[in-house]
Protein backbone atom coordinates (compact mmCIF):
# COMPACT_ATOMS: atom_id res chain seq x y z
CA UNK A 1 0.00 0.00 0.00
CA UNK A 2 1.21 3.48 -0.84
CA UNK A 3 0.92 4.86 2.67
CA UNK A 4 2.86 1.98 4.22
CA UNK A 5 5.86 4.10 5.07
CA UNK A 6 3.78 6.63 6.95
CA UNK A 7 1.51 4.18 8.76
CA UNK A 8 2.53 3.25 12.27
CA UNK A 9 2.07 -0.49 12.49
CA UNK A 10 2.06 -2.80 15.49
CA UNK A 11 3.01 -6.49 15.16
CA UNK A 12 3.85 -6.16 11.45
CA UNK A 13 5.58 -9.55 11.59
CA UNK A 14 2.36 -11.31 12.54
CA UNK A 15 0.22 -10.46 9.53
CA UNK A 16 0.34 -10.02 5.77
CA UNK A 17 -1.83 -7.91 3.46
CA UNK A 18 -0.75 -9.64 0.29
CA UNK A 19 -3.09 -10.46 -1.39
CA UNK A 20 -5.52 -10.00 1.51
CA UNK A 21 -5.23 -9.49 5.28
CA UNK A 22 -4.27 -12.73 7.02
CA UNK A 23 -2.43 -13.56 10.23
CA UNK A 24 0.95 -15.30 10.13
CA UNK A 25 1.05 -18.37 12.33
CA UNK A 26 3.74 -20.94 13.01
CA UNK A 27 3.42 -24.51 11.71
CA UNK A 28 5.79 -27.28 12.71
CA UNK A 29 6.94 -29.37 9.75
CA UNK A 30 7.28 -32.49 11.89
CA UNK A 31 4.09 -32.32 13.96
CA UNK A 32 1.88 -30.22 11.70
CA UNK A 33 0.91 -28.28 14.80
CA UNK A 34 -0.01 -24.60 14.47
CA UNK A 35 0.43 -21.72 16.92
CA UNK A 36 -0.31 -18.04 16.82
CA UNK A 37 1.95 -16.18 17.07
CA UNK A 38 4.75 -18.46 15.82
CA UNK A 39 6.90 -19.86 18.62
CA UNK A 40 10.60 -20.65 18.48
CA UNK A 41 9.91 -24.35 19.02
CA UNK A 42 6.80 -26.44 18.53
CA UNK A 43 5.22 -27.19 21.94
CA UNK A 44 4.22 -30.72 20.95
CA UNK A 45 7.29 -32.13 19.20
CA UNK A 46 9.86 -29.74 20.73
CA UNK A 47 11.44 -29.28 17.32
CA UNK A 48 12.41 -25.92 15.86
CA UNK A 49 11.25 -26.68 12.32
CA UNK A 50 8.59 -23.98 12.52
CA UNK A 51 7.44 -22.44 9.23
CA UNK A 52 5.73 -19.05 9.20
CA UNK A 53 2.56 -19.40 7.14
CA UNK A 54 -0.66 -17.43 6.72
CA UNK A 55 -3.78 -18.57 8.54
CA UNK A 56 -7.12 -18.52 6.71
CA UNK A 57 -8.63 -15.05 6.50
CA UNK A 58 -11.90 -16.06 8.18
CA UNK A 59 -12.39 -17.37 11.69
CA UNK A 60 -15.19 -17.99 14.17
CA UNK A 61 -16.00 -15.58 17.02
CA UNK A 62 -15.67 -17.80 20.12
CA UNK A 63 -16.51 -14.98 22.54
CA UNK A 64 -16.35 -11.20 22.73
CA UNK A 65 -16.93 -8.20 24.94
CA UNK A 66 -17.38 -4.49 24.49
CA UNK A 67 -14.59 -2.83 26.46
CA UNK A 68 -15.88 0.41 27.98
CA UNK A 69 -13.06 1.18 30.39
CA UNK A 70 -9.53 0.49 29.24
CA UNK A 71 -5.89 1.32 29.64
CA UNK A 72 -4.72 4.71 28.26
CA UNK A 73 -4.16 5.04 24.49
CA UNK A 74 -7.27 3.03 23.59
CA UNK A 75 -10.46 4.74 22.42
CA UNK A 76 -13.47 3.19 24.14
CA UNK A 77 -15.80 1.53 23.53
CA UNK A 78 -14.18 -1.13 21.36
CA UNK A 79 -14.89 -4.77 20.66
CA UNK A 80 -12.47 -7.42 21.93
CA UNK A 81 -12.86 -11.01 20.82
CA UNK A 82 -11.48 -14.53 20.84
CA UNK A 83 -11.36 -15.82 17.28
CA UNK A 84 -11.04 -19.52 16.51
CA UNK A 85 -9.41 -21.08 13.46
CA UNK A 86 -10.83 -24.58 13.92
CA UNK A 87 -8.75 -26.38 11.28
CA UNK A 88 -5.51 -25.06 12.77
CA UNK A 89 -6.81 -25.33 16.37
CA UNK A 90 -5.66 -21.79 17.01
CA UNK A 91 -7.48 -19.21 19.13
CA UNK A 92 -6.51 -15.56 18.70
CA UNK A 93 -7.39 -12.56 20.85
CA UNK A 94 -7.86 -9.33 18.92
CA UNK A 95 -10.08 -6.30 18.53
CA UNK A 96 -13.33 -6.82 16.67
CA UNK A 97 -14.86 -3.99 14.67
CA UNK A 98 -18.54 -3.55 13.80
CA UNK A 99 -20.78 -0.72 12.60
CA UNK A 100 -22.95 -1.34 15.66
CA UNK A 101 -20.98 -3.08 18.43
CA UNK A 102 -24.10 -3.65 20.53
CA UNK A 103 -26.08 -5.45 17.82
CA UNK A 104 -23.80 -6.70 15.06
CA UNK A 105 -21.71 -9.23 17.01
CA UNK A 106 -22.82 -12.68 18.10
CA UNK A 107 -21.17 -15.82 19.43
CA UNK A 108 -20.21 -18.31 16.75
CA UNK A 109 -20.43 -15.85 13.84
CA UNK A 110 -17.89 -15.77 11.03
CA UNK A 111 -15.40 -12.91 11.15
CA UNK A 112 -12.66 -11.85 8.73
CA UNK A 113 -9.18 -10.50 9.27
CA UNK A 114 -8.74 -6.82 8.47
CA UNK A 115 -6.08 -4.19 9.11
CA UNK A 116 -7.26 -1.13 11.01
CA UNK A 117 -6.66 1.32 13.83
CA UNK A 118 -6.13 -0.38 17.17
CA UNK A 119 -4.84 2.43 19.41
CA UNK A 120 -3.28 5.87 19.61
CA UNK A 121 0.41 6.64 19.86
CA UNK A 122 1.62 9.07 22.55
CA UNK A 123 1.53 11.87 19.94
CA UNK A 124 -2.11 11.09 19.19
CA UNK A 125 -1.51 9.44 15.81
CA UNK A 126 -3.27 6.19 14.89
CA UNK A 127 -1.53 2.84 15.22
CA UNK A 128 -2.59 0.06 12.87
CA UNK A 129 -2.61 -3.69 13.29
CA UNK A 130 -4.70 -6.76 12.62
CA UNK A 131 -8.26 -6.93 13.83
CA UNK A 132 -11.48 -8.62 12.79
CA UNK A 133 -14.98 -7.74 11.62
CA UNK A 134 -18.07 -9.75 10.71
CA UNK A 135 -17.92 -11.10 7.15
CA UNK A 136 -20.31 -9.32 4.80
Amino acid sequence: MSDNNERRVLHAEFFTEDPEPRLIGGKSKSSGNWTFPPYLADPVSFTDDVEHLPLPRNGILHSFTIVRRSLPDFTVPFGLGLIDFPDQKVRVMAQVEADDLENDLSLGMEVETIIGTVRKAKDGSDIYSYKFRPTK
Partner: protein
Amino acid sequence: MANLREVYIIGVGQTPCGKFPNKAAHVLGREACWAAIKDSGIHARDIEIGFCGHVYQGMGVGQRTLKDIGLVGQPVINVEGACGSGTLSLWEAWRTIAYGQQDIALAWGVENLSKIMSGGPLPLEEDDIEVALGMSMPGLYAMRAKKYLDEYGVSEETLAKVVVKSRKHAAKNPIAQFRKETTIEAVLNDPLIADPLTRSMCCPVGDASAAVVLVDGETLKRMKRDTTRLPIKILSCVAQSGGYASATGLTCDPSENVARTSQMAYEQAGLGPKDMDTVEIHDAFAIAELIVAEALGFAKKGEGSRLIEEETSNYDGEIAINASGGLLSRGHPVGATGILQTVEIVNQLRGEATGYQVPNAKVGLIETMGGAQPAMDGITCVVSILGK
Protein backbone atom coordinates in the same frame (compact mmCIF):
# COMPACT_ATOMS: atom_id res chain seq x y z
CA MET B 1 9.68 -37.33 45.47
CA ALA B 2 11.82 -36.97 48.57
CA ASN B 3 10.22 -37.43 51.98
CA LEU B 4 8.87 -34.00 52.73
CA ARG B 5 9.05 -32.55 56.22
CA GLU B 6 5.86 -31.37 57.91
CA VAL B 7 5.39 -27.61 57.68
CA TYR B 8 3.22 -25.47 59.96
CA ILE B 9 2.04 -21.88 59.93
CA ILE B 10 2.54 -20.59 63.48
CA GLY B 11 1.92 -16.89 63.06
CA VAL B 12 -0.17 -14.61 60.86
CA GLY B 13 -0.46 -10.85 60.41
CA GLN B 14 -2.26 -8.51 58.04
CA THR B 15 -3.09 -4.88 57.48
CA PRO B 16 -6.54 -3.61 56.51
CA CYS B 17 -7.33 -3.55 52.76
CA GLY B 18 -8.02 -0.08 51.36
CA LYS B 19 -6.38 2.88 49.71
CA PHE B 20 -3.32 4.08 51.59
CA PRO B 21 -1.43 6.22 49.06
CA ASN B 22 0.80 7.63 51.78
CA LYS B 23 2.00 4.25 53.01
CA ALA B 24 4.92 2.88 51.05
CA ALA B 25 4.89 -0.85 50.34
CA HIS B 26 7.64 -1.55 52.86
CA VAL B 27 5.67 0.34 55.52
CA LEU B 28 2.59 -1.82 54.90
CA GLY B 29 4.85 -4.87 54.72
CA ARG B 30 6.62 -4.27 58.01
CA GLU B 31 3.28 -3.93 59.84
CA ALA B 32 2.10 -7.32 58.56
CA CYS B 33 5.47 -9.03 59.10
CA TRP B 34 5.82 -7.70 62.63
CA ALA B 35 2.27 -8.77 63.49
CA ALA B 36 2.95 -12.28 62.13
CA ILE B 37 6.20 -12.62 64.08
CA LYS B 38 4.52 -11.46 67.30
CA ASP B 39 1.62 -13.82 66.70
CA SER B 40 4.01 -16.72 66.16
CA GLY B 41 5.62 -16.19 69.55
CA ILE B 42 9.15 -16.62 68.16
CA HIS B 43 11.92 -14.06 68.33
CA ALA B 44 12.30 -12.05 65.12
CA ARG B 45 15.98 -13.07 64.80
CA ASP B 46 14.92 -16.72 64.47
CA ILE B 47 13.64 -15.98 60.96
CA GLU B 48 16.18 -17.62 58.63
CA ILE B 49 14.81 -16.58 55.24
CA GLY B 50 12.15 -14.30 53.80
CA PHE B 51 10.04 -14.47 50.61
CA CYS B 52 8.21 -11.32 49.53
CA GLY B 53 5.49 -11.52 46.87
CA HIS B 54 4.70 -8.32 44.96
CA VAL B 55 4.16 -7.11 41.40
CA TYR B 56 4.60 -3.35 41.10
CA GLN B 57 6.67 -2.36 44.16
CA GLY B 58 10.12 -1.99 42.66
CA MET B 59 13.59 -3.18 43.47
CA GLY B 60 14.34 -4.83 46.80
CA VAL B 61 10.99 -4.26 48.47
CA GLY B 62 11.45 -7.40 50.58
CA GLN B 63 14.82 -6.26 51.93
CA ARG B 64 13.45 -2.75 52.54
CA THR B 65 10.59 -4.26 54.53
CA LEU B 66 12.64 -6.47 56.85
CA LYS B 67 15.30 -3.82 57.49
CA ASP B 68 12.65 -1.82 59.36
CA ILE B 69 12.09 -4.61 61.89
CA GLY B 70 15.75 -5.35 62.52
CA LEU B 71 16.07 -8.25 60.12
CA VAL B 72 19.13 -7.87 57.94
CA GLY B 73 21.69 -10.31 56.61
CA GLN B 74 19.45 -13.34 56.06
CA PRO B 75 18.45 -14.13 52.46
CA VAL B 76 15.36 -12.38 51.12
CA ILE B 77 13.85 -13.39 47.80
CA ASN B 78 11.39 -11.13 45.99
CA VAL B 79 8.83 -13.23 44.19
CA GLU B 80 6.72 -12.20 41.19
CA GLY B 81 3.94 -14.30 39.69
CA ALA B 82 1.31 -11.70 38.76
CA CYS B 83 -1.78 -11.94 41.00
CA GLY B 84 -0.40 -15.24 42.32
CA SER B 85 2.75 -13.59 43.72
CA GLY B 86 1.66 -13.87 47.36
CA THR B 87 0.97 -17.57 47.31
CA LEU B 88 4.02 -18.16 45.11
CA SER B 89 6.05 -16.71 48.01
CA LEU B 90 4.18 -19.08 50.36
CA TRP B 91 5.07 -21.99 48.06
CA GLU B 92 8.73 -20.93 48.06
CA ALA B 93 8.75 -20.76 51.86
CA TRP B 94 6.90 -24.06 52.17
CA ARG B 95 9.29 -25.94 49.90
CA THR B 96 12.43 -24.47 51.42
CA ILE B 97 11.26 -25.90 54.76
CA ALA B 98 9.67 -29.08 53.42
CA TYR B 99 12.94 -29.97 51.67
CA GLY B 100 15.00 -29.15 54.74
CA GLN B 101 16.95 -26.11 53.57
CA GLN B 102 15.75 -23.85 56.39
CA ASP B 103 13.62 -24.42 59.50
CA ILE B 104 11.87 -21.07 59.96
CA ALA B 105 10.72 -18.79 57.14
CA LEU B 106 8.64 -15.67 56.70
CA ALA B 107 6.42 -15.33 53.64
CA TRP B 108 4.54 -12.17 52.91
CA GLY B 109 2.85 -10.31 50.12
CA VAL B 110 2.55 -6.58 49.67
CA GLU B 111 1.16 -4.12 47.19
CA ASN B 112 0.46 -0.43 47.14
CA LEU B 113 -1.59 0.05 43.99
CA SER B 114 -3.15 3.40 44.87
CA LYS B 115 0.28 5.02 44.61
CA ILE B 116 0.39 4.11 40.92
CA MET B 117 -3.27 4.26 39.88
CA SER B 118 -6.59 5.60 41.14
CA GLY B 119 -8.82 3.08 39.39
CA GLY B 120 -9.39 1.22 36.13
CA PRO B 121 -7.72 -1.95 34.85
CA LEU B 122 -4.32 -3.06 36.10
CA PRO B 123 -1.42 -1.99 33.89
CA LEU B 124 -0.16 -5.06 32.06
CA GLU B 125 2.99 -5.98 30.13
CA GLU B 126 3.06 -4.07 26.81
CA ASP B 127 5.44 -6.62 25.27
CA ASP B 128 2.52 -9.03 25.38
CA ILE B 129 0.98 -8.81 21.90
CA GLU B 130 -2.58 -9.10 23.20
CA VAL B 131 -2.06 -6.38 25.80
CA ALA B 132 -0.65 -4.11 23.08
CA LEU B 133 -3.90 -4.70 21.17
CA GLY B 134 -6.14 -3.77 24.07
CA MET B 135 -6.48 -6.80 26.32
CA SER B 136 -7.18 -5.98 29.94
CA MET B 137 -8.03 -8.32 32.79
CA PRO B 138 -11.69 -7.16 32.91
CA GLY B 139 -11.86 -7.63 29.12
CA LEU B 140 -10.50 -11.16 29.36
CA TYR B 141 -12.85 -12.21 32.16
CA ALA B 142 -15.75 -10.50 30.38
CA MET B 143 -15.20 -12.75 27.35
CA ARG B 144 -15.11 -15.79 29.63
CA ALA B 145 -18.33 -14.56 31.29
CA LYS B 146 -20.07 -13.96 27.95
CA LYS B 147 -19.26 -17.49 26.78
CA TYR B 148 -20.15 -19.09 30.11
CA LEU B 149 -23.53 -17.36 30.46
CA ASP B 150 -24.43 -18.37 26.90
CA GLU B 151 -23.21 -21.96 27.17
CA TYR B 152 -24.86 -22.78 30.49
CA GLY B 153 -27.91 -20.53 30.37
CA VAL B 154 -26.84 -18.44 33.36
CA SER B 155 -28.05 -14.85 33.73
CA GLU B 156 -26.26 -11.64 34.71
CA GLU B 157 -28.42 -11.73 37.83
CA THR B 158 -26.45 -14.76 39.08
CA LEU B 159 -23.21 -12.80 38.65
CA ALA B 160 -24.82 -9.99 40.67
CA LYS B 161 -25.71 -12.49 43.40
CA VAL B 162 -22.03 -13.44 43.66
CA VAL B 163 -21.28 -9.80 44.47
CA VAL B 164 -24.20 -9.52 46.91
CA LYS B 165 -22.91 -12.59 48.81
CA SER B 166 -19.37 -11.26 48.72
CA ARG B 167 -20.37 -7.87 50.21
CA LYS B 168 -22.49 -9.61 52.84
CA HIS B 169 -19.50 -11.65 53.95
CA ALA B 170 -17.12 -8.68 53.84
CA ALA B 171 -19.47 -6.61 56.00
CA LYS B 172 -18.35 -8.77 58.93
CA ASN B 173 -14.66 -8.88 58.04
CA PRO B 174 -12.87 -6.06 59.89
CA ILE B 175 -10.07 -5.76 57.30
CA ALA B 176 -12.30 -5.75 54.19
CA GLN B 177 -12.21 -2.86 51.73
CA PHE B 178 -15.98 -2.86 51.04
CA ARG B 179 -18.06 -3.42 54.17
CA LYS B 180 -21.39 -2.13 52.94
CA GLU B 181 -23.97 -4.62 51.73
CA THR B 182 -25.44 -4.24 48.25
CA THR B 183 -28.39 -5.48 46.17
CA ILE B 184 -28.81 -7.28 42.85
CA GLU B 185 -30.32 -4.13 41.32
CA ALA B 186 -27.45 -1.93 42.46
CA VAL B 187 -24.87 -4.33 41.01
CA LEU B 188 -26.68 -4.61 37.67
CA ASN B 189 -27.20 -0.84 37.46
CA ASP B 190 -23.52 -0.10 38.00
CA PRO B 191 -21.67 1.16 34.91
CA LEU B 192 -20.46 -1.55 32.53
CA ILE B 193 -16.68 -2.01 32.46
CA ALA B 194 -16.65 -4.77 29.82
CA ASP B 195 -19.98 -6.42 28.95
CA PRO B 196 -21.43 -8.21 30.87
CA LEU B 197 -19.26 -7.17 33.84
CA THR B 198 -20.36 -4.08 35.75
CA ARG B 199 -18.03 -2.15 38.02
CA SER B 200 -18.95 -3.99 41.21
CA MET B 201 -18.45 -7.35 39.45
CA CYS B 202 -14.76 -6.33 39.24
CA CYS B 203 -12.36 -6.27 42.19
CA PRO B 204 -11.27 -2.83 43.44
CA VAL B 205 -7.89 -1.10 43.38
CA GLY B 206 -6.40 -1.33 46.85
CA ASP B 207 -3.38 -1.69 49.09
CA ALA B 208 -2.44 -4.10 51.89
CA SER B 209 0.10 -6.56 53.19
CA ALA B 210 -0.20 -9.93 54.90
CA ALA B 211 2.43 -12.27 56.34
CA VAL B 212 2.83 -15.79 57.71
CA VAL B 213 5.58 -17.51 59.72
CA LEU B 214 6.37 -21.10 58.72
CA VAL B 215 8.27 -23.74 60.67
CA ASP B 216 9.02 -27.44 60.28
CA GLY B 217 7.37 -29.97 62.61
CA GLU B 218 10.51 -30.99 64.54
CA THR B 219 11.56 -27.42 65.25
CA LEU B 220 8.01 -26.64 66.34
CA LYS B 221 8.15 -29.42 68.96
CA ARG B 222 11.41 -28.03 70.39
CA MET B 223 10.30 -24.40 70.39
CA LYS B 224 9.47 -22.42 73.48
CA ARG B 225 6.43 -20.46 72.42
CA ASP B 226 2.90 -19.56 73.50
CA THR B 227 1.10 -22.83 72.82
CA THR B 228 -2.34 -21.22 72.86
CA ARG B 229 -1.56 -19.97 69.34
CA LEU B 230 -2.69 -23.01 67.37
CA PRO B 231 -0.24 -24.14 64.65
CA ILE B 232 -1.95 -24.85 61.32
CA LYS B 233 -0.48 -27.57 59.14
CA ILE B 234 0.18 -27.09 55.44
CA LEU B 235 -1.26 -30.33 54.05
CA SER B 236 -0.25 -29.47 50.51
CA CYS B 237 1.08 -26.61 48.44
CA VAL B 238 1.35 -26.75 44.64
CA ALA B 239 2.36 -24.11 42.09
CA GLN B 240 1.85 -24.49 38.35
CA SER B 241 2.13 -22.25 35.31
CA GLY B 242 -0.54 -21.92 32.66
CA GLY B 243 -0.96 -24.37 29.81
CA TYR B 244 -1.11 -23.75 26.06
CA ALA B 245 -4.43 -23.08 24.49
CA SER B 246 -3.27 -23.47 20.88
CA ALA B 247 -1.04 -26.49 21.19
CA THR B 248 -3.68 -28.51 22.93
CA GLY B 249 -6.44 -27.41 20.61
CA LEU B 250 -9.46 -25.24 21.14
CA THR B 251 -10.94 -27.29 23.94
CA CYS B 252 -8.54 -25.68 26.41
CA ASP B 253 -10.65 -24.28 29.20
CA PRO B 254 -9.72 -21.09 31.05
CA SER B 255 -9.89 -23.08 34.26
CA GLU B 256 -7.58 -25.88 33.09
CA ASN B 257 -4.71 -24.45 35.13
CA VAL B 258 -6.83 -24.36 38.30
CA ALA B 259 -8.14 -27.90 37.76
CA ARG B 260 -4.65 -29.30 37.16
CA THR B 261 -3.08 -27.50 40.12
CA SER B 262 -5.87 -28.36 42.55
CA GLN B 263 -5.84 -32.02 41.48
CA MET B 264 -2.15 -32.16 42.41
CA ALA B 265 -2.86 -30.39 45.72
CA TYR B 266 -5.70 -32.81 46.59
CA GLU B 267 -3.40 -35.74 45.82
CA GLN B 268 -0.55 -34.34 47.90
CA ALA B 269 -2.92 -33.86 50.85
CA GLY B 270 -4.72 -37.18 50.33
CA LEU B 271 -8.02 -35.31 50.39
CA GLY B 272 -10.76 -34.33 47.95
CA PRO B 273 -13.18 -31.46 47.39
CA LYS B 274 -15.74 -32.97 49.79
CA ASP B 275 -13.23 -32.70 52.66
CA MET B 276 -12.95 -28.91 52.39
CA ASP B 277 -14.83 -26.81 54.93
CA THR B 278 -13.75 -23.29 54.00
CA VAL B 279 -12.27 -22.04 50.76
CA GLU B 280 -10.72 -18.79 49.57
CA ILE B 281 -10.75 -18.53 45.78
CA HIS B 282 -9.45 -15.95 43.36
CA ASP B 283 -12.64 -14.10 42.40
CA ALA B 284 -11.01 -11.10 40.72
CA PHE B 285 -14.25 -10.90 38.71
CA ALA B 286 -17.67 -12.31 39.65
CA ILE B 287 -17.58 -14.96 36.89
CA ALA B 288 -14.40 -16.43 38.37
CA GLU B 289 -16.20 -17.67 41.48
CA LEU B 290 -18.40 -19.93 39.33
CA ILE B 291 -15.67 -21.16 36.98
CA VAL B 292 -13.12 -21.75 39.74
CA ALA B 293 -15.60 -23.48 42.07
CA GLU B 294 -16.22 -25.97 39.25
CA ALA B 295 -12.50 -26.39 38.50
CA LEU B 296 -11.88 -27.13 42.18
CA GLY B 297 -14.56 -29.83 42.14
CA PHE B 298 -17.24 -28.13 44.27
CA ALA B 299 -19.76 -28.26 41.43
CA LYS B 300 -20.09 -30.00 38.08
CA LYS B 301 -19.12 -28.06 34.98
CA GLY B 302 -21.76 -25.45 34.26
CA GLU B 303 -23.39 -25.90 37.67
CA GLY B 304 -21.30 -23.47 39.72
CA SER B 305 -24.23 -21.07 39.80
CA ARG B 306 -26.18 -23.55 41.94
CA LEU B 307 -23.81 -22.85 44.83
CA ILE B 308 -24.93 -19.23 44.61
CA GLU B 309 -28.63 -19.79 43.86
CA GLU B 310 -28.98 -22.38 46.64
CA GLU B 311 -26.77 -20.35 49.00
CA THR B 312 -24.61 -23.37 49.80
CA SER B 313 -21.42 -21.30 49.48
CA ASN B 314 -22.37 -18.82 52.19
CA TYR B 315 -19.99 -18.76 55.16
CA ASP B 316 -22.38 -20.94 57.17
CA GLY B 317 -23.36 -23.11 54.18
CA GLU B 318 -22.21 -26.56 53.07
CA ILE B 319 -18.96 -25.25 51.56
CA ALA B 320 -17.97 -21.76 52.64
CA ILE B 321 -16.55 -19.90 49.64
CA ASN B 322 -14.82 -16.58 50.30
CA ALA B 323 -16.11 -16.02 53.83
CA SER B 324 -13.69 -13.08 53.88
CA GLY B 325 -15.53 -11.34 51.04
CA GLY B 326 -12.92 -12.51 48.55
CA LEU B 327 -11.12 -10.31 46.06
CA LEU B 328 -14.37 -8.57 45.09
CA SER B 329 -14.99 -7.13 48.56
CA ARG B 330 -12.13 -7.85 50.95
CA GLY B 331 -9.94 -6.50 48.18
CA HIS B 332 -7.25 -7.51 45.71
CA PRO B 333 -3.95 -5.79 46.50
CA VAL B 334 -2.32 -7.98 43.85
CA GLY B 335 0.88 -9.32 45.46
CA ALA B 336 -0.68 -9.39 48.94
CA THR B 337 -3.80 -11.32 47.92
CA GLY B 338 -2.53 -14.89 48.26
CA ILE B 339 -1.24 -14.30 51.77
CA LEU B 340 -4.42 -12.45 52.77
CA GLN B 341 -6.29 -15.59 51.66
CA THR B 342 -3.89 -17.75 53.68
CA VAL B 343 -4.27 -15.62 56.82
CA GLU B 344 -8.05 -15.84 56.41
CA ILE B 345 -7.98 -19.66 56.28
CA VAL B 346 -5.65 -19.81 59.31
CA ASN B 347 -8.02 -17.55 61.25
CA GLN B 348 -10.99 -19.73 60.27
CA LEU B 349 -9.20 -22.95 61.27
CA ARG B 350 -8.15 -21.40 64.56
CA GLY B 351 -11.78 -20.45 65.17
CA GLU B 352 -10.90 -16.77 65.36
CA ALA B 353 -13.03 -15.31 62.57
CA THR B 354 -15.33 -13.54 64.96
CA GLY B 355 -18.71 -12.67 63.47
CA TYR B 356 -18.27 -14.80 60.34
CA GLN B 357 -16.75 -18.00 61.69
CA VAL B 358 -17.28 -21.00 59.42
CA PRO B 359 -18.80 -23.65 61.73
CA ASN B 360 -16.50 -26.62 62.53
CA ALA B 361 -13.83 -25.55 60.03
CA LYS B 362 -11.09 -28.18 60.07
CA VAL B 363 -9.69 -28.09 56.54
CA GLY B 364 -9.39 -25.10 54.22
CA LEU B 365 -8.22 -24.49 50.66
CA ILE B 366 -6.61 -21.45 49.05
CA GLU B 367 -6.61 -20.90 45.27
CA THR B 368 -4.78 -18.02 43.63
CA MET B 369 -4.64 -17.37 39.90
CA GLY B 370 -2.30 -14.87 38.35
CA GLY B 371 -2.33 -13.07 35.06
CA ALA B 372 -2.83 -13.98 31.45
CA GLN B 373 -0.59 -14.38 28.44
CA PRO B 374 -1.22 -14.96 24.75
CA ALA B 375 -2.84 -18.27 23.90
CA MET B 376 -2.51 -19.51 27.47
CA ASP B 377 -4.85 -19.78 30.41
CA GLY B 378 -2.85 -17.91 33.04
CA ILE B 379 0.63 -17.19 34.38
CA THR B 380 0.61 -18.77 37.84
CA CYS B 381 -1.82 -20.89 39.81
CA VAL B 382 -1.10 -21.87 43.41
CA VAL B 383 -3.37 -24.13 45.46
CA SER B 384 -2.72 -24.88 49.14
CA ILE B 385 -4.66 -26.98 51.61
CA LEU B 386 -4.38 -26.25 55.33
CA GLY B 387 -5.62 -28.30 58.27
CA LYS B 388 -5.60 -28.18 62.04
